[in-house]
């Protein structure tokens, strides 16, 4: 069957047939096939204005009677709704969409404060995440809560800035953007997996979820972007200086944020607690924090020549 014309054309034709079915039932099909306008005046004029969906399509439509086409459309739309509901329900099992929404509940003030904190964390005093009846408060209300908005935006901006940097050195080609994207993504995934593995091995009882770790690993893109942009604007010295500053800032930021989540409470308050387990946890925190500057340098040094 030749369904030429748009979907709206199809429904228009169906409505037309509905409206006129009471009148011209016997020669309805003849009206469609014969577009000369020699039939009953007003309807023919009406039909000729409908000439947009061409007659070749309507001869195919004449096979369907009016109630049948409506029934088919209604059935099709109900099938589509059912399919979408089923897909939503199944997708929620693999990717927790409702939990993801929490990480994107940000506003401009939070983003501004968090960016400032990522570049200058030395004045901030209170690093605790505030809770509200056992669930963490949305990032909009608490600067210390991790979010996924800044990491995802930072990732995309990093790719764009990398393309820009390569373009200024005449080394750009569109495939390189894809190569950079998959490289950075792979390093991110590997870092999160390694951190997860080490957290499992050290048996830390923490409420850090995988998405939290993803958020913390994504915060380094901000420093990388600052470094590369400074390098583009002011040359290599500026790149090294700003990268050094951002590396130190990210190091302090990670240590202060993760200390509260990974270490036991006594050690987190700053008192020196002896014991093999606490020492191991301290080393783990420092290793995670030290990995960030390494990645920041590794992913950007080839962009600034």
């Amino acid at each position, binding site marked *: 069957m030749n369904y030429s014309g748009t979907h709206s054309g199809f429904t228009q034709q169906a409505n037309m047939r509905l409206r006129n079915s009471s009148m011209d039932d016997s020669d309805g099909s003849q009206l469609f096939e014969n577009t000369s306008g020699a039939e009953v005046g007003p309807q023919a004029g009406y039909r000729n204005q409908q000439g947009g969906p061409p007659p070749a399509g309507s001869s195919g439509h004449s096979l369907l009677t009016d109630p049948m086409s409506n029934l088919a459309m209604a059935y099709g739309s109900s099938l589509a709704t059912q399919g979408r509901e089923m897909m939503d329900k199944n997708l929620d099992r693999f990717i927790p969409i409702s939990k993801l929404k929490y990480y994107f509940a940000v506003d401009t003030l939070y983003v501004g404060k968090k960016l400032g904190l990522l570049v200058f964390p030395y004045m901030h005093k209170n690093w605790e995440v505030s809770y509200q009846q056992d669930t963490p408060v949305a990032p909009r209300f608490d600067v210390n809560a991790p979010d996924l908005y800044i990491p995802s935006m930072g990732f995309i901006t990093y790719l764009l800035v990398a393309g820009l940097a390569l373009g200024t050195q005449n080394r750009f080609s569109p495939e390189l953007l894809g190569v950079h994207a998959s490289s950075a993504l792979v390093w991110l995934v590997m870092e999160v997996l390694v951190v997860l593995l080490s957290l499992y091995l050290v048996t830390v009882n923490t409420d850090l979820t995988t998405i939290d770790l993803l958020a913390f690993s994504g915060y380094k893109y901000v420093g990388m972007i600052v470094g590369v942009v400074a390098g583009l604007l002011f040359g290599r010295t500026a790149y090294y200086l700003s990268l050094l500053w951002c590396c130190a800032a990210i190091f302090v930021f990670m240590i202060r944020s993760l200390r509260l989540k990974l270490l036991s409470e006594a050690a987190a308050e700053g008192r020196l607690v002896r014991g093999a387990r606490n020492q*191991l946890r301290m080393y783990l925190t420092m290793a995670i924090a030290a990995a960030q500057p390494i990645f920041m340098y590794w992913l950007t040094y080839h962009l600034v020549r």
Partner: protein
Amino acid sequence: MALTLYALIQTAVLCTNALAVLHEERFLSKLGWGVEQGVGGFGDDPGVKAQILNLIRSVRTVMRGYIIPYLCCVLLISLS
């Protein structure tokens, strides 16, 4: 630096394969990492070594349980 996502998947499958075919008697017991040393530390501090041994043993059990999909994956990955 051109590390693709596919390379990551390849690495993961091959590493899991290495863990799965690791023979306990021949290698781990010689190193003092056999299965009897792993379950020793009960209490709230299993220790890193016990966790690693647990991990290796569980990977081996799971992989040997799902042998057919596992073999298909390993074959596909190693052939490309």
